[in-house]
């Protein structure tokens, strides 16, 4: 099998061209970091909206969450890339990656935050309001701090999914890790096997520590019996 799909010289060629993969990895990391920040901000704001008593805010949050949870990310990204320029909105692929993936996962983070807020016993907010705190103050100083440790594991899982989902950029020539792998695999001697194995490994190296940390943290939480009632299951994407 000196010339099979897994032949050693193909791995050597990949090693020589490792810069291509490093560039892709860097783009994937940057897009992930920006998208994650965006998803967290959107998620907290919408999570607060959906637990408020204001009808309009609640509806806005609901519509946002349902829209982004129930349409494929691929279509959203393809739409931003190809349809928006026709009405004069032209983002570069990096922005599309950060914003597209960010707003998409914002919907999932919003659901995590909502579930987290609901898991705090109502007595907490009642007591805080009895002390004269406004609704926002109650959330900011009393409820959210208690929520954080409960929602950290599901949030981390969202981060893992977010990193993997940045690979959607490959279809719009986004320069991310997946795109570089596709591009490298389709040039020269068509050495697709090493390309995809190494790319898979790189994603694994990014995601596995996060996922493991989340699992361990959750186990510790359970053993300390901090969770008062089980978190609502958030649908994985």
């Amino acid at each position, binding site marked *: 099998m000196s010339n*099979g799909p897994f032949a050693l010289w193909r791995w050597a060629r990949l090693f020589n061209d490792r810069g291509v993969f490093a560039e892709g990895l860097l783009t994937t990391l940057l897009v992930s970091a920006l998208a994650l920040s965006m998803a967290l901000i959107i998620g907290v704001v919408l999570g607060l909206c959906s637990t408020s008593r204001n009808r309009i805010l609640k509806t806005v949050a609901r519509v946002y969450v349902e829209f982004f949870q129930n349409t494929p990310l691929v279509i959203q990204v393809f739409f931003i890339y190809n349809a928006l*320029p026709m009405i004069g909105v032209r983002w570069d692929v990096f922005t599309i990656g950060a914003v597209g993936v960010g707003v998409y996962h914002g919907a999932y983070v919003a659901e995590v935050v909502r579930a987290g807020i609901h898991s705090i016993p109502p007595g907490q907010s009642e007591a805080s309001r009895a002390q004269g705190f406004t609704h926002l103050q109650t959330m900011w100083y009393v409820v959210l701090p208690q929520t954080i440790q409960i929602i950290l594991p599901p949030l981390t899982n969202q981060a893992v999914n977010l990193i993997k989902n940045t690979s959607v950029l490959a*279809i719009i020539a986004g320069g991310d890790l997946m795109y570089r792998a*596709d591009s490298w695999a389709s040039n020269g001697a068509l050495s697709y096997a090493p390309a995809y194995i190494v790319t898979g490994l790189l994603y694994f190296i990014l995601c596995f520590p996060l996922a493991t940390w989340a699992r361990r943290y959750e186990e510790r939480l359970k053993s300390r019996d901090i969770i008062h009632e089980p978190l609502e299951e958030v649908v994985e994407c």
Partner: protein
Amino acid sequence: MRKLLAVLCAAAMLTAVSGCAGSSSVTAASIKNAGVLKVGVKEDVPGFGLLNKDTNQYEGLEIELAKLIAKEFTGDDTKVEFTPVTAKTRGPLLDNGDINMVIATFTITEDRKLTYNFSTPYYQDAVGMLVKKDAGINSLADLGGKTIGVAQSATSKDAIQAAADEAGVSISFSEFASYPEIKAALDSGRVDVFSVDGSILGGYVDDTSVILPDRFSPQDYGVATKLDNKDLAQTVDDLINKWLNDGTIAGLVSKYNL
């Protein structure tokens, strides 16, 4: 880092070993026994391999070639099973044995011969460029700073890069998995030029776009077989040579106006 390398090496060795175990040679005789020739073809390239949506039948030069080969192998030109492939899927499908050969505008290059067997070329085509009529691009010289949309696993990227270097213009590339995606990117202005082999380009011209007269580096299309199957490759090559000499292929070329 050392651990990572160890894991990589282990993966490489494992896959190499499993690759050996699964392979059994495919020959004309084994295809005759199986009673069907499995061919990977394009389904979106008019004149070469096109799935006619009205009749649900494949048609084109490469389809006829596949039928001719099936007739030689099994005595019946209907004993052929078509699998639609893209530039990205045709290699893996050959390697894993799902198809016996690929006849799908597969360009022969020296590098690719390390990976697959190619027959004598049955058709020669040049890389062409499709641009929007109002883009003001008339030739290669106007491409400075432009983005060229190319298909993954197509040789057009290298061809245009070489031509651009020669003309002294700097260009960048965006790669896509399928031709319709490149066309969409051209329409939305994401890329300035849609560049693939000229024959393929013909299927994507519309009222707003035009194919430039410039053409680059002729591309040779060959029938590809898995590298292990040397006998099959030889048989196919003999057939292609025979049909090149007796005018069969020339007849097909003119039949499809290529």
